[in-house]
């Protein structure tokens, strides 16, 4: 499976090249990729249905327990098939839809990376591996939402989605690490038998909450739901694929996958249940004021995601069954409706439901496709959506305490979904023909085929549910509950309470639709008070972080070289003297002072040039004094038997003087800018450095330094390093990695210097 995923990434990288060659028919080429994956995984279907679990593992960082381990069971296979199947429809569709955009090749790179990462996410057996894929889907989603990067709203929406899901990802990461602390491994399959251990651990509440926050941000659960409607800035194929059928289900997948490992406790079940239910109801209410086709669909997606999460929270056998049927049904119809919305936008140039109408005659095939998907979404017999909704209601009715409230909530939310469906799936095609200057015609074949096939599948799944779903459901349910379920799906169960509820839902949905039609103007203008909108909290948090960063940067990076130097020097003095005090326990002993003539002369030269340097009023004099100082120090190195250092010092001093002269040429005339108090402060700092160095030398000479290293290098230099110059052998052989690091830093620093100088030379910058 690792190879399959790597192939996926490689294929994505190739997309732009192929796109250039086969611009017209690229959709057909692209579709082979998801289809190949689809049939590849479908071939494993018999194995999985017979109860087998396929595992693969390639070591990555075995010492940390991080491996490319993959797990294919009923749960992951369901997701894989959904991802690849919808992917195929979307890839083909985009071939026609994206023609108007620039950089379509890049679009396929992003979406290819996304699909592969999403597959990786649901196949991973290793939590950290899954996290890597989790983040990759977030990044590709960011790139795809911001695909129209010249539009500010796109950039903003992309950033918002990235920050919310990325932030949630970090929270999840902490949860994973805590889980590792408890269990000592990252493999999901080895958590299977550890539920008792994990839930009994003191860290358990933290783990549960952290993992859930990660899942909730990804699946846009309340109060993190706001990024999803904004993400509709993305091109429509992206919305259909990432933001309804697949990526937003990653959080749902995570909850399902972790359910029997770390679930089953009140804190887990109740949090999931309440969050899911509130998302379901709230998004239904929020959908009421939308006029944009895609936003309407986005809020209905939120309602469905909420329902799915709620079902996991209920956690009964029936609820898990409902979860799967609903999941499959939603993937089949919602992708279709998004693509239809894209087609309408593409052909008419608007997505405003108030304007669209009467297109059925011009686009009959699109209309039929939309109708099929809509019927499924509304839950009308015999489509798969009907079974989904019926099972959801049934599983809620089983509940003892919450049942009555939840069923009311579910009916209400579904009524809103029905309303959305009427707006998206029917209104554009029926009624009075809209006025438009464009010549309307049927969508191109590529944009019809995928949605139509998916819609037809929705019908087939509904009519023969046992053939398509029953066997898979058993295995999938086992992944979540670790119990074997025997599920038979029946589409018609006679007249009972559940069916009545379905009728109520439809009726209520129809009423809502009519109300909404009548009072369109007022509704659009309705807004919540700012403090009640989570998106406003997000904005405020973002502003806070930015302004804090500004203040902090102003304080720390104030741009005055002297301040930087003072901070660096004082820190060094403080830390070094502390270390010196602790280790030497005092100031050490001054070594014997037998000074030769040369040493005395050099010391004199150094002192004189230092004084000259400090008191000079001419820059040239200062530079000459500095040069004299440097050369004297070089000579000291030579005298004390460090010819390498001496040589280097001479060369550096020479170049230093040249550099200073060059800079000097640019500077204005010598000015006395610093006040005496500043000079006094500088003197104190300088002297403190000098004193520190003196004591360091004393301390160093008063210890008998361990000579093992010295001996080691002296002995091994010639045999191992093939050189007699120990210093050089250390630099280029024994400690070459350090040197490599240093020269890399040097190179980067030089680039920085050149860039700064060029910036000034070109008149840019400050």
């Amino acid at each position, binding site marked *: 499976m690792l190879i399959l995923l790597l192939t996926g990434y490689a294929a994505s990288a190739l997309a732009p090249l192929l796109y250039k060659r086969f611009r017209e028919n690229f959709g057909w080429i692209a579709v082979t990729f998801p289809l190949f994956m689809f049939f590849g995984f479908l071939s494993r279907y018999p194995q999985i249905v017979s109860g087998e679990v396929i595992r693969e593992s390639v070591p990555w960082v075995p010492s940390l327990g991080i491996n490319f381990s993959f797990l294919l069971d009923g749960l992951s296979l369901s997701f894989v098939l959904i991802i690849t199947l919808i992917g195929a429809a979307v890839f083909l569709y985009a071939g026609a839809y994206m023609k108007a955009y620039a950089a379509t090749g890049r679009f396929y790179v992003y979406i290819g990376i996304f699909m592969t990462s999403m597959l990786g996410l649901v196949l991973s057996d290793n939590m950290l591996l899954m996290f890597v894929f989790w983040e990759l889907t977030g990044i590709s989603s960011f790139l795809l939402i911001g695909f129209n990067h010249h539009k500010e709203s796109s950039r903003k929406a992309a950033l918002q989605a990235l920050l919310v899901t990325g932030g949630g990802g970090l929270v999840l990461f902490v949860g994973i690490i805590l889980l590792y602390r408890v269990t000592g491994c990252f493999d999901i399959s080895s958590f299977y038998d550890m539920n008792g251990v994990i839930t009994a651990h003191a860290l358990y509440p933290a783990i549960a909450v952290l993992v859930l926050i990660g899942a909730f941000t990804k699946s846009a659960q309340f109060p993190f739901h706001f990024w999803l409607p904004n993400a509709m800035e993305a091109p429509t194929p992206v919305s259909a694929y990432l933001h309804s059928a697949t990526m937003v289900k990653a959080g749902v997948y995570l909850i399902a996958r972790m359910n029997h490992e770390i679930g089953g406790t009140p804190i887990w079940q109740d949090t999931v249940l309440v969050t899911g239910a509130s998302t379901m109801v709230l998004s239904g209410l929020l959908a009421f004021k939308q006029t944009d086709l895609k936003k309407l669909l986005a809020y209905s997606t939120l309602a469905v995601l909420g329902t799915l999460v709620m079902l996991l929270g209920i956690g009964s056998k029936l609820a898990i069954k409902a979860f799967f049927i609903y999941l499959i049904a939603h993937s089949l119809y919602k992708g279709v409706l998004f693509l239809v919305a894209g087609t309408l936008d593409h052909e008419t140039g608007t997505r405003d439901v108030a304007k669209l109408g009467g297109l059925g005659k011009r686009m009959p095939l699109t209309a039929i496709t939309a109708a099929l998907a809509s019927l499924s979404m509304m839950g009308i017999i015999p489509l798969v959506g009907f079974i989904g909704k019926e099972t959801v209601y049934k599983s809620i009715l089983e509940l003892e305490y919450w049942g009555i409230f939840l069923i009311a909530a579910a009916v209400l939310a579904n009524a809103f979904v029905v309303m959305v469906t009427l707006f998206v799936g029917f209104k554009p095609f029926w009624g009075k023909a809209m006025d438009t200057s464009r010549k309307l015609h049927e969508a191109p074949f590529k944009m019809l085929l995928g949605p139509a096939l998916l819609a037809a599948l929705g019908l087939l799944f509904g009519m023969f549910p046992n053939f398509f779903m029953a066997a898979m459901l058993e295995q999938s349910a086992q992944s979540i509950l670790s119990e074997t379920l025997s599920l038979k799906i029946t589409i018609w169960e006679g007249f009972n309470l559940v069916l009545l509820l379905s009728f109520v839902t439809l009726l209520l949905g129809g009423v809502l639709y009519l109300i909404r039609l009548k009072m369109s103007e007022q509704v659009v203008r309705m807004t919540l008070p700012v403090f009640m909108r989570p998106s406003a909290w997000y904005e405020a948090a973002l502003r806070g972080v930015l302004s804090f960063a500004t203040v902090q940067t102003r304080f720390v990076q104030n741009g005055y070289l002297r301040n930087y130097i003072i901070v660096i020097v004082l820190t060094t003095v403080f830390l070094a003297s502390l270390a010196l005090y602790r280790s030497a326990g005092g100031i050490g002993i001054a070594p014997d002072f037998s000074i030769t003539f040369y040493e005395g002369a050099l010391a004199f030269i150094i002192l004189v040039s230092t004084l000259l340097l400090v008191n000079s009023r001419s820059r040239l004099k200062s530079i000459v004094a500095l040069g004299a100082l440097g050369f004297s120090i070089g000579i000291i190195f030579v005298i004390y038997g460090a*010819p*390498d250092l*001496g*040589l*280097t010092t001479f*060369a*550096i001093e*020479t*170049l230093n003087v*040249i*550099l200073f002269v*060059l*800079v000097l*040429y*640019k500077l204005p005339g010598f000015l006395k800018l610093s006040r005496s108090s500043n000079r006094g402060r500088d003197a104190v700092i300088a002297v403190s450095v000098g004193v520190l160095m003196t004591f360091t030398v004393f301390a160093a000479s008063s210890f008998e330094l361990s000579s093992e290293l010295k001996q080691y290098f002296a002995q091994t230099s010639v045999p*191992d*390093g*093939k*050189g*007699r*110059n120990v*210093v*050089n*052998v250390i*630099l*280029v*052989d024994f400690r*070459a*990695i350090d*040197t*490599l690091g240093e*020269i*890399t830093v*040097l*190179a980067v*620093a*030089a*680039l920085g*210097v*050149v860039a700064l*100088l*060029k910036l*000034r*030379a070109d008149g840019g910058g400050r």
Partner: protein
Amino acid sequence: MEEDGNMYSIILATASRYLLLLLLIFSVFLLLRGHNEPGGGFVGGLVAAAAYALYFIANGIQAAKTVVRFDPLRIIAAGLLTAIASTLPSLFTGERFMTAFWIDTGIPFIGKVGTPLLFDLGIYFLVLGITISIIFSLAEEDRS
């Protein structure tokens, strides 16, 4: 030639041409002897840079650039890449990273050649590139 006008000295300009060659030979000498005697890539690079700096002082920036021939930034890159290239043999043979490899050429005066020498050569070019790129940038700024 006469770019900096008042600063031009014909003696220095003439001398610098010969000095440039001598100093460059000296810098290579330093680089090669570094393994057994004081010297090495770092000092060698600095001396080479000083040689070009001298040429620049005598003849002006344009002439110096012509003599260097390559963009100093490319010299930096070449140096870094050379240094990194010297690590590759150890990577491919599965030895620990940066293990040295030596070949005895058997030629007198050259003797054994190994990856540390290549590494030192990288340092030489890197230091040379960095120094002259900074000097040249400063000099360019003067002119503008």
